[in-house]
């Protein structure tokens, strides 16, 4: 035990959260054998609980580690997280209250269920399901990495702490369902806000103010590189990275689950106004990357082993250890670790909802309500075990690469979900074709980048337009879906398969 005080505080926080996780099931208690209760909290979370839950859902431990690490290593480009978490909210405001209303009226608990109801096409829904589960698995795995980094920074040995934490996570997810992460997210956010506020007060004071911090950053990394002649350079790269990430964000199954568990459309609209408070926190956290540069943690022999093992991801833990008394480092690390448990639980539950409603009941057997929930619970545990196995047996770089691909894949469900809330112009098979082309081209372009870069330089009419691959390929996807819908609607219209009605969309 390298840091006894920090470790004790950390363990106490984790233990408290575990107790909370198990007791959460009794909060606003419902019939836990029903999937809408277990997997969607009974759709009864009001504005504040939803604010914490969705906030805990999308501002995750991985974000807290990876975004500052990107700023630490690559500089200004890492700040794309800020415009990203600004422009995602108009999407939330416009699309998801409608989706909530339709889902509530028809008893849907997942995005793919809506698409199946809208188009009467279970293959299109299956495509969205597979995309969601494949995009989610590496995402859970990276939450574990976030937790592993802080456990490692505390000097706790081996994989045992991580496996223990996730075994307990699996247990309370099983018993309490979505109420567990909803309740824990409140604790997590209070700790994170405390950490961030302390960090932006204490660390700049130690380093001589923000001016001194920015002055120590390599000037070439402080701003985006001005584009060369004939290219839109880093400008379009940065903007499309933000816009594409924002379009993809709420399509992730765990984000949809968080939104659908709200108690009304109005709760979602109000959260589109209130959730940006987290973006301010994220922006300040991102700047910890520059503070780590200014504090010189990378050249501190105390942290050499950590950087060797975790790379730039170690920047934030090292900065925290270097700047705070040990007991406070314990609080900060506790916040990050709990920040991993919340989204990991929601991701497992979201995947389970999808598995039972969109795979099992569609392609295997219809089940009664009690058995439906039981199978979903087992699948949630399977997802958690899968993610732990992922981390233990597969090199970390694969998880990072799959996460990168996951964003490019999940955005391909944008036309089928987002457009369908506004129009029934599209044909289900046309959307499926657009999805397939989008997935294939995105994967191919990512392969050309050796799965290391998200931005690809497109050459159009003699101009170079670098774009986030996800953004460029979803445009192609939408164009194909549109062009194919015209003949398909004329020859083989699938409008009769729509089980929703016009009044749902008014």
């Amino acid at each position: 035990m390298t840091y006894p005080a920090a470790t004790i505080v950390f363990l106490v926080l984790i233990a408290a959260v575990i107790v909370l996780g198990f007791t959460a099931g009794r909060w606003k208690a419902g019939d836990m054998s029903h999937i809408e209760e277990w997997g969607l909290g009974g759709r009864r979370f009001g504005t504040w609980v939803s604010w914490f839950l969705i906030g805990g859902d999308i501002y995750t431990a991985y974000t807290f580690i990876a975004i500052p690490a990107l700023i630490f290593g690559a500089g200004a480009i890492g700040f794309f997280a800020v415009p990203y978490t600004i422009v995602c909210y108009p999407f939330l405001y416009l699309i998801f209250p409608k989706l909530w209303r339709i889902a509530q009226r028809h008893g849907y608990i997942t995005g793919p269920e809506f698409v199946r109801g809208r188009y009467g096409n279970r293959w299109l829904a299956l495509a969205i399901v597979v995309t969601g589960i494949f995009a989610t698995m590496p995402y859970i795995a990276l939450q574990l990495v976030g937790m592993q980094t802080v456990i490692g920074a505390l000097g706790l040995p081996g994989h045992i702490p991580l496996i223990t934490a996730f075994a307990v996570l699996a247990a309370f997810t099983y018993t309490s369902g979505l109420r567990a992460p909803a309740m824990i997210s409140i604790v997590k956010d209070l700790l994170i806000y405390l950490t961030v506020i302390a960090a932006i007060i204490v660390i700049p004071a130690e380093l001589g103010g923000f001016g001194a911090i920015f002055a120590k950053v390599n000037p070439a990394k402080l701003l985006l590189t001005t584009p060369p002649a004939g290219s839109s350079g880093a400008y379009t790269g940065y903007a499309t990275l933000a816009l594409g990430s924002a379009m993809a964000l709420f399509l992730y199954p765990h984000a949809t689950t968080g939104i659908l568990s709200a108690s009304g459309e109005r709760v979602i609209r109000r959260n589109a106004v209130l959730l940006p408070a987290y973006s301010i926190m994220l922006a300040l956290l991102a700047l910890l990357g520059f503070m780590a540069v200014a504090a010189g943690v990378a050249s501190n022999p105390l942290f050499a082993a950590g950087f060797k093992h975790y790379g730039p991801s170690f920047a934030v833990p090292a900065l925290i250890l270097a700047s705070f008394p040990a007991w406070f480092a314990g609080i900060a690390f506790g916040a990050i670790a709990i920040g991993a448990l919340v989204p990991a639980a929601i991701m497992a539950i979201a995947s389970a909802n999808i598995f039972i409603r969109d795979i099992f009941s569609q392609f295997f057997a219809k089940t009664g309500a009690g058995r439906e929930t039981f199978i979903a619970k087992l699948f949630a545990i399977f997802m958690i075990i899968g993610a732990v196995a992922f981390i233990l047996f597969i090199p970390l770089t694969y998880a990072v690469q799959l996460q990168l691909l996951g964003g490019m894949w999940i955005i391909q469900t944008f036309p089928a979900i987002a457009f369908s809330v506004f129009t029934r112009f599209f044909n289900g098979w046309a959307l499926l074709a657009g999805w397939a082309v989008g997935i294939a081209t995105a994967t191919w372009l990512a392969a050309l980048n050796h799965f290391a870069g998200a931005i690809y330089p497109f050459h159009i009419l003699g101009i170079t337009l670098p774009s986030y691959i996800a953004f460029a390929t979803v445009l192609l996807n939408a164009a194909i879906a549109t062009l194919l819908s015209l003949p398909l609607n004329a020859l083989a219209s699938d409008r009769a398969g729509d089980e929703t009605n016009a009044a749902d969309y008014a």
Partner: protein
Amino acid sequence: MRLLLLLVFVIALAVPVFNRAAPALFGFPFFYWYQIAAIPVSSALIYLVFRAEDREP
């Protein structure tokens, strides 16, 4: 009213406008403080749309 939402995209994605160091504020180069300031501004714009459209008491 919903056109205000379009403004959110313009403000947040106008990279050539804000990719500069000066003027700095509290030691933050323009690039950083502009984008941080854009967060409450965008939230306020969404709030205006919410208030205009909200029908419930």
